[in-house]
C-alpha cells in the first residue's frame, strides 16, 4: 500500500472538494502572508486567516469541537495577545529587510526547507504505510458526536496528561507575572532614593508619560538602563 489516500478523487462530492480547495488556498496564502508581510500587524491578521482556514478543515473532518476551540482560543485569544504586545511595544513599523546580519542565510534557509519538503513528499509516496490498530483511544463518532467522544477520552484515557496541563498553565501564568514585574518595582523592596523621589511627588508625571522608564536609580542588575524618570526627579529634588 502506497499512500492511504482512500481514493484520491473517488467517491468525493464536488462540495467537499471545493471546500478543501478554497480552505487550502486561504491557508497557504495566509501562511505566505505571515512570512512576507513587513508590518507585524499585517502578519498577525494573515495568521488569523490561516487559523480560520484550518478551522474549516477541522469541520470538514468532523472535528467540530476542535474547530470551535481553534477559533476561540487561537483567533480570539492568542492572536489578540500578539496584537496587544505589538501595539504595546510600538514595533508596528516596517522591518528593514535589506539588512542581512548572517550572509547567505536566507537562500540557504530556502534551499534547506525546499529540500526537507521534497524529502517529506518522497517519503510519503514511497514508504510503506503501517496504519496499525484502529480506534485505540476510542471511536471518533460515538453517541453524542465528537464532543462526547473527546470529553470521554480526555477525562479517562488522558486524565493524567490533563492534570499536568493545569499545572503547566499555572506555571505559565506565574512566569508571565514574574517576567512582567519591573526590576525593583512596586511589588519588590523599593530601592533607596525612590522614597524621596516619591516624597517630592515629581516622578508621577514623567513615569506616566513613559511607561518603559525605569523607576528608581540605576541598580547593579541594570547594566544598560534607559534614563530613568525617578533619577531625573531625584536630581531635580536635590537642590
Amino acid at each position, binding site marked *: 500500500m502506497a*499512500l492511504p489516500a482512500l*481514493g*484520491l478523487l473517488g*467517491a*468525493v*462530492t464536488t462540495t*467537499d472538494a471545493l471546500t*478543501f480547495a478554497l480552505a487550502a488556498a486561504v*491557508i*497557504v496564502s495566509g*501562511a*505566505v502572508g505571515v*512570512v512576507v*508581510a513587513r508590518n*507585524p500587524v499585517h*502578519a498577525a491578521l494573515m495568521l488569523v486567516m490561516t*487559523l480560520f482556514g*484550518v478551522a474549516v*478543515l*477541522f469541520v470538514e*473532518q468532523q472535528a467540530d469541537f476542535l474547530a470551535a476551540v*481553534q477559533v476561540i482560543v*487561537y483567533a480570539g485569544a492568542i492572536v489578540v*495577545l*500578539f496584537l496587544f*504586545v505589538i501595539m504595546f*511595544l510600538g*514595533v508596528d513599523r516596517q*522591518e528593514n529587510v535589506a539588512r542581512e*546580519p548572517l550572509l547567505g542565510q*536566507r537562500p540557504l534557509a*530556502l534551499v*534547506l*526547507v525546499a529540500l*526537507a519538503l521534497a524529502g*517529506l*513528499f518522497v517519503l*510519503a509516496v514511497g514508504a510503506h504505510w503501517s496504519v496499525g490498530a*484502529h*480506534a*485505540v*483511544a*476510542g*471511536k*471518533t463518532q460515538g453517541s453524542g458526536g*465528537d464532543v462526547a*467522544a*473527546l470529553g470521554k477520552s*480526555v477525562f479517562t*484515557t*488522558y486524565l493524567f496528561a490533563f492534570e499536568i*496541563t493545569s499545572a503547566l*498553565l499555572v506555571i505559565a*501564568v506565574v*512566569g*508571565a507575572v514574574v*517576567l*512582567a514585574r519591573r526590576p525593583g518595582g512596586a511589588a519588590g523592596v523599593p530601592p533607596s532614593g525612590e522614597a524621596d523621589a516619591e516624597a517630592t511627588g515629581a516622578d508621577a508625571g514623567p513615569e506616566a508619560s513613559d511607561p*518603559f522608564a525605569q523607576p528608581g536609580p540605576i541598580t547593579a542588575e541594570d547594566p*544598560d538602563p534607559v534614563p530613568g524618570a525617578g533619577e531625573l526627579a531625584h536630581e531635580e529634588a536635590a537642590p
Partner: protein
Amino acid sequence: MSLGGAWYLGLAAVVFSIGALGLLVRRNVLVMFMCVELMLNAANLTFVTFARMLGDIGGQSLVFFTLVVAAAEVVVGLGIVVAMFRRRRGATADDFHVLRG
C-alpha cells in the same frame, strides 16, 4: 465523505515548511513566534487527519493538549519579549545577543 487524507497531509506539510522558512528568515521575534504558531497548526491538522483516517479520537485529544501548550508558550514567550524590549528597545532576534554566555 471528505477528500482522501493524503490531500490534508500534503497541505499540512506545505504549511509546516512555510512556517519553518519564516522562522529561519525573519528577524522580528514576534513574527518568528507567529511562524511557530503556523508550524503548530500544521501539526494539529495532521493529527486531526490521522484521527479521521484511523477512526481514533486520540488524535483529537492530542490537538486539545497542543492548544494548551501553545497558549502557555505564547504567554511566556511574549513576556520574555516585553522584558527584553524594556531593556534593549528592540524586538529583533539580534537584540537577544546579551544572553550569550
